[in-house]
């Protein structure tokens, strides 16, 4: 048969593994060079007195108090509190926003009815509603989970709606021509085609979840990373405060990486962008 056509070879396994040692090391150096440089600056600037070490302690001091808090279990307690709140709110948001978004995207009537209210809520900054949530739900877990839920809902909902509406009409036409029912069309075409766009919303929600939660914990809480930061600041435990900030950065990184892995798993059919 046709030998004239070119065959696109796609590597099934990554060949780099064969001579990994050198490349791996090179990659690591490239990826960490700037971070290491920044940490070195952080270490030296307070030590040579360019900034007040009381307000901006050297990196090693921060690491020391971070380690002390880790060993004492204090950090873990705050970390757990934060991650439980953000994950609960985040997962509840997904459970509500994805089905609702599919519904709104698929049924024109649902869209007409709900669109105005969506426009209002999506443009309301979640943090502006924080006082309302606290007044109604108290300063306990409920208000924090609720505000995370609120903040996460919009990006997921709006992306899900957009995803359903923007499915390539040709794919729908192609499936329809094979005489499949509307239900099957939805399950077999609309849903899988929407996954990548829905995931964009999920990742935005992941970032939002942390941001809103920390702010809520700073305003009123008895534990959590946001609380740790404000509490340390009030008590002038500056290294502890920085330790809290670093932990938040790590938490954000963790959530983002986790979502990336999930995204890759669900949209492995997408053309890799290089």
């Amino acid at each position: 048969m046709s030998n004239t056509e070119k065959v696109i070879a796609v590597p099934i396994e990554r060949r780099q593994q064969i001579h990994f040692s050198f490349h791996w090391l090179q990659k690591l150096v490239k990826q960490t060079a700037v971070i290491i440089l920044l940490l070195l600056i952080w270490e030296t600037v307070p030590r040579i007195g360019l900034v007040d070490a009381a307000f901006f302690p050297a990196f090693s001091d921060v690491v020391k108090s971070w380690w002390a808090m880790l060993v004492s279990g204090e950090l873990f307690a705050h970390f757990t509190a934060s991650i439980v709140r953000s994950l609960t709110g985040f997962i509840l948001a997904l459970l509500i926003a994805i089905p609702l978004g599919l519904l709104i995207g698929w049924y024109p009537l649902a869209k007409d009815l709900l669109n105005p209210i969506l426009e209002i809520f999506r443009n309301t900054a979640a943090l502006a509603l924080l006082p309302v949530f606290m007044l109604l739900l108290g300063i306990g877990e409920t208000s924090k989970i609720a505000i995370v839920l609120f903040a996460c809902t919009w990006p997921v909902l709006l992306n899900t709606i957009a995803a359903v509406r923007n499915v390539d009409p040709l794919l729908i036409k192609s499936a329809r021509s094979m005489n499949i029912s509307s239900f099957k069309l939805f399950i077999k075409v609309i849903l899988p085609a929407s996954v990548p766009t829905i995931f964009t919303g999920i990742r935005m929600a992941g970032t939002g979840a942390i941001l809103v939660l920390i702010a809520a914990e700073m305003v009123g809480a008895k534990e959590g990373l946001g609380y740790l930061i404000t509490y340390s600041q009030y008590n002038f435990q500056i290294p502890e405060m920085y330790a809290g900030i670093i932990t938040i950065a790590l938490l954000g990184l963790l959530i983002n990486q986790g979502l990336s892995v999930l995204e890759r798993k669900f949209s492995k059919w997408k053309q890799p962008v290089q």
Partner: protein
Amino acid sequence: MTDKIRFEHVTKIFKVRDTEQGKRALKEFTAVKDLNFSVKDGEFLTLVGPSGCGKSTLLDLLSGLTKPTSGRILLDGKEITGPGLDRGIVFQQYALFPWKTALGNIEFGLEAKGISKKERIELTRYYLSLVGLEGFEDRYPHELSGGMKQRVAIARSLAFNPDVLLMDEPFAALDAQTRETLQSELLRIWEKTKKTIIFITHGIDEAVYLGQRVAVMSTKPGSIKHMIDIPLDSRLNELDIRSHPEFVKARHQIWNLLHGNIYQAASI
């Protein structure tokens, strides 16, 4: 041979926005007008015409995705009322599901038909080899070249065993070399499967090369101006069929028809 498909006074009118009359005004646009023709069982008919002549409307009508405003289309003597697996469509832009492998894409129609998993796999493998893609079962569409994608799309449409294959400029997006290869592949598949094929194109050469008959369409409103028989037997045995006198003659005749020079065409 009996009539497989019959068009009886088929007219399709769309409501389109009339910008001259204001934003909300609608006007009627006749996409195709009074189509009357029939296609025989196992025939390869090509439709050629300028853009906007209603080629794609005609195909949508045949696939059952839209209904004619007046007139009717008969398939085996029964009126077409909606889409069905007795007709398979191949689109210019392949329309493969990007989240499914070649295998999964071909299975799609078979699943809709309610065929068991085991049989589906067997059929899929058979049709993949028919289009010359054995061993490519697990490739995703983005891992295939344009020509290969169209082969998968053809296999998908053949796999659920429709009587009629509708092809909407399937090779228009391919490079010349791949197009020629796929044209002769399609003829080979047609001879092997004995399907009735309706093939839309804007290429005169392609229309003459593939079709036993060529329907020449004209625009405003879209209608079939002429039906031209191509008196070539087997295109696959001839080495350079495109230089055959009959081929050249038919090509020239259609060219004249499309360029509005009817007198010259008649004098050939």
